[in-house]
């Protein structure tokens, strides 16, 4: 009796994983390595093999992109009512829930599914507990490819996260097999075993195919804001998980000629809760775009399911802020009751951050919240709060900064209590260098690579590496 025939331990071997990565993506990752700690980032992105215009055309044919940009007039008015005179930027929202499958992840799934189809693969496999699973399943349905989604779904007591159950339902609605696992780091072993057994294409979130598809989102934002407001956006707030959303949006804005826009990453604070913990699994109300993913992926993007992650968020991010779980639920309620659109909740992380950020900016500025996601059973702020209460988590009203992730969720009574807490990105950039450099003496090409990876000047790279004795 088994769901996976192979011995899973075999897939912990890096050589086995490298070969499977080559077979399941068509990318020779080993050939992109060097010199030293460096790798050919532009060469990896070029593997996507499609221009922005070609991807946009593909997405049009696959019911993706061209989403509306809504001005949030009542939320903007609320922000101005609590801002200093002359402050309170206009907040606009890119309604990505309008994509097939209900989130921006459809942009990420479009190209991998098309590549798999063109190259004659029978199917596609992805490991994801989030919207990306439904996106891959939906895109695969459009071209008749078979699809398997592997999810980390329940803890050792069989208790499932309601939001993840909803994603499983959606995947099955689009005709995908859903393999649901208990909590643990073996998710990636199972993924590799499935790739090996089926010979399917890898729908990893971190291939150049999956990251390139987001560039249309940044490009659309640049064009739409300029058309409507006669200026570039001043800031774009991006929810940060594995980094693909951020990189794709930043590169797309750049291609639209809006390269000067401040890119602000936002994540939900779940400090103290471990990603690998069975105990903590159901004690967080968000399954992505939280600090449990966002911070480790900033420090080490290559902790992904492939040898190299095509998304390198530190190359693009200007600021990184965190918000509390209760603040995102508040923003979700505002969006429904003031703007009349029910979205999220997890997709409203950037909106929760945008409210205090816009409050501090001049009123002639434009702040873009670059995503929404569909709402459904389980994927809902009431469902998440009910689930939290069942885990013994206290829900109360007050100052959200007083909440303790895993113990309490505090809903702010009004918008003036929302904060976007700044994270020291310089420290994160230096930690990145120390991790990569280890004890080695860096050659000039390696210093140049790390400077590009972190946006630190060369001398700061050397100083940070020197801190590790290198």
């Amino acid at each position, binding site marked *: 009796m*088994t769901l996976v025939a192979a011995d899973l331990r075999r897939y912990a071997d890096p050589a086995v994983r490298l070969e499977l990565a080559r077979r399941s993506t068509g990318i020779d990752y080993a050939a992109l390595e060097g010199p030293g700690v460096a790798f050919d980032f532009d060469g990896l992105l070029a593997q996507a093999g499609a221009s922005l215009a070609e991807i946009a055309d593909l997405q049009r044919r696959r019911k993706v992109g061209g989403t509306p940009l809504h001005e949030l007039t009542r939320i903007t008015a609320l922000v101005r009512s609590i801002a200093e005179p002359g402050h309170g930027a206009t907040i606009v929202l890119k309604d990505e829930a309008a994509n097939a499958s209900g989130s921006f992840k459809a942009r990420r799934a479009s190209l991998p599914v098309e590549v798999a189809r063109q190259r004659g693969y029978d199917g596609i496999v992805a490991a994801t507990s989030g919207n990306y699973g439904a996106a891959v399943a939906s895109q695969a349905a459009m071209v008749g490819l078979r699809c398997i989604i592997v999810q980390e779904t329940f803890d050792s007591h069989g208790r499932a996260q309601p939001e993840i159950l909803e994603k499983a339902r959606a995947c099955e609605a689009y005709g995908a097999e859903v393999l649901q*696992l208990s909590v643990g780091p073996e998710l990636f072993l199972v993924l590799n075993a499935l790739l090996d057994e089926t010979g399917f294409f890898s729908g990893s979130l971190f291939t150049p195919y999956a990251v390139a598809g987001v560039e249309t989102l940044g490009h659309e934002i640049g064009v739409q804001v300029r058309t409507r407001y006669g200026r570039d956006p001043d800031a774009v707030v991006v929810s940060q998980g594995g980094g693909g959303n951020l990189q794709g949006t930043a590169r797309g804005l750049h291609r639209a000629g809006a390269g000067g826009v401040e890119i602000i990453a936002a994540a939900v604070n779940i400090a103290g809760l471990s990603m690998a913990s069975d105990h903590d699994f159901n004690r967080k109300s968000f399954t992505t775009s939280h600090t449990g993913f966002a911070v480790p992926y900033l420090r080490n993007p290559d902790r992904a399911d492939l040898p190299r992650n095509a998304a390198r968020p530190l190359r693009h991010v200007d600021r990184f802020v965190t918000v509390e779980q209760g603040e995102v*639920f*508040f923003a979700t309620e505002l969006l429904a009751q003031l703007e009349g659109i029910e979205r999220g909740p997890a997709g409203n992380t950037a909106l929760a951050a945008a409210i205090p950020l816009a409050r501090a900016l001049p009123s002639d500025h434009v702040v873009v919240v670059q995503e929404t996601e569909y709402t459904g059973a389980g994927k809902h702020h009431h469902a998440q709060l009910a689930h939290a209460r069942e885990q013994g988590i206290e829900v109360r009203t007050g100052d959200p900064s007083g909440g303790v992730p895993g113990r309490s969720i505090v809903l*702010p*009574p009004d918008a003036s209590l929302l904060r976007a807490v700044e994270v020291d990105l310089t420290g994160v950039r230096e930690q990145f260098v120390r991790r990569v450099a280890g004890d080695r003496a860096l050659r000039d090409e390696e210093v140049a690579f790390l400077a590009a990876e972190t946006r630190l000047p060369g001398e700061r790279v050397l100083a940070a590496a020197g801190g590790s004795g290198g």
Partner: protein
Amino acid sequence: MDEARGGAVPAGTWVEIDATLMEGGQRPVSAPDTAATPLVGRVRGFTVSEARPGEPCEVVTLAGRRLSGRLSVTAPRHDHGFGRTEPQLVGLGLRLRGARP
């Protein structure tokens, strides 16, 4: 998740099966919280032949794969919901839109 019904289900029934993929104690010690517990998988599909709840069962999944496990749920349902309405949330939404309850 097990259903109490003990009767056999015919071939072609939509079911959920489960299986242990790794025993507790075989799992990486780098994740101390899960190392001692089994890694369990669940998947849904159509039964290939007659099967009994709690017993070995082979299914064909939506991806067309034949997988075997223990028949854990007959005719599984997606019963996740919207939870109890959180009055504090509704109250704050109403207050902020200007219509006081």
